[in-house]
């Protein structure tokens, strides 16, 4: 390996996976998921083990954790935080409301999941999202962060892939064309059975 190769490989060596700093924003959440996000920082889960710091500052953060669905009032805030973040960055939708709008999906005042406003990289469902799932989601987000860094080094456009954590918890996505369903999980089961 020549010296130049070594320099090139050391430049590709990435520390972005060792130090994910997060910013957490409560869009239109009921606070259930927010409590779980903060619970991840407590001694029981202690995400600081992985170098995670809850910065609260978009300019310093690498990972954007959003809880709750989006409405007209929080839409500009989400967009602004996202735009203030510095590349490479990833967005994690925490909880079913952030993923798809959840039970509020068909409310007249709700726009749906976070992906209606900004590109989402990782979907972590749950009501409320469990800290274990959240940590799993952040670890997946770190992988995407690294992929984005690689793309930046190669001069390629930064990819925005979509991942879903916990495949067994399949997120049911309603579209406006769907039949108006009764409520919640029963409705989606009924819809599947009829298909």
């Amino acid at each position, binding site marked *: 390996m020549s010296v130049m190769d070594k320099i090139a490989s050391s430049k590709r060596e*990435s*520390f*972005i996976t*060792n*130090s994910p*700093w997060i910013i957490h924003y409560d869009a239109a959440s009921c606070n259930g998921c927010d409590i779980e996000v*903060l619970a991840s*920082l407590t*001694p029981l889960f*202690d995400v*600081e*083990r*992985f*170098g995670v*710091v*809850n*910065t*609260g*500052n978009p*300019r*310093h953060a*690498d990972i954007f954790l959003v809880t709750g669905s989006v409405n007209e009032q929080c839409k500009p805030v989400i967009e602004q935080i996202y735009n203030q973040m*510095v*590349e*490479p960055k990833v967005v994690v939708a925490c909880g079913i409301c952030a993923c798809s709008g959840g039970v509020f999906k068909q409310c007249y005042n709700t726009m749906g999941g976070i992906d209606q406003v900004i590109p989402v990289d990782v979907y972590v469902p749950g009501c409320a999202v469990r800290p274990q799932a959240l940590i799993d989601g952040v670890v997946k987000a770190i992988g995407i962060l690294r992929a984005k*860094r690689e793309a930046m080094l190669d001069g390629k456009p930064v990819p925005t892939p979509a991942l879903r954590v916990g495949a067994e918890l399949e997120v049911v996505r309603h579209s406006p064309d769907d039949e108006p369903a009764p409520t919640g999980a029963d409705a989606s089961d009924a819809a599947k059975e009829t298909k």
Partner: protein
Amino acid sequence: MVWLSILLGILFVVLGPVLGCLIAGADRIVTARMQRRQGPPLLQPYYDLRKLLEKDMRANDVVQLILLVMALVATVVGGVSFFAGASFLLCIFLETLASLLYIVAASIGSSPFVQVGVQREILQVMCYEPMELLTAIGIYLHTGSYASGSLGAASVPMVMWLPLIFLSLLFVLTIKLRKSPFDVASSHHAHQEIIAGATTEMSGLTLAVIEVTHWYETVIVLGWVGMFFITSNPLSILLALLAVAIVYLLEIWVDNTFARVKWQVMLKGAWIVALVAGFVNFSPFFFVGTNGLLFF
């Protein structure tokens, strides 16, 4: 002796950030253990720094980066002056210059959080400056010189003559190291009222420069603590290192146990402590003469 000074200066420039980084890492682990958490790896501050260098930099103005690099250079030169045994006075003046450059650099940001953070920085400089000057006077009274190297010729450690000055320097150290009760509610804590204070609008390289400056600064202020225990006996270096370790653990403990105070309390506290300690501790020297060594 000249060669020893040059060697010590070079050692500080090279090992200063390494030591500062390790201290910062150990600080985070000890803090976590005090909160019954496991805490990050020891090298976490280094990972953070490398990560910041990988991020894009979005600056308000290029001048910001230039000013911050100047602050870093001022800190390093001040530290070299101190650790090479040259002037302690030069060291504290260059530290002040570095703080001012940092304040000017940060105030370029237009965010209200930045403005609040910058105001707070100015107040902090105002709080710790008198105590640093009194420490310089203390060195002069003890050795008859402002050179930190002259402590290496002393027969008794400075803390014997100036215990109150030492204690009030510890008070000020809490402000210098940005620890509770004199820190601000900014990020890296669970409470983030003013986001990241003065560094709110900085990212990537700019933030990395601040981080390295802070590592150097930590080593320098801990050096100030250590110098109170240095005598002509080489073994006193071990005593100084032990004292530094105990003082830093104490700082972490204070950081974790004390509630944050308002700036008024910080200002009054720092000035009262400095003035009382200075007056009481220096008054014997008016009777015994300026050079403590002559009297022992």
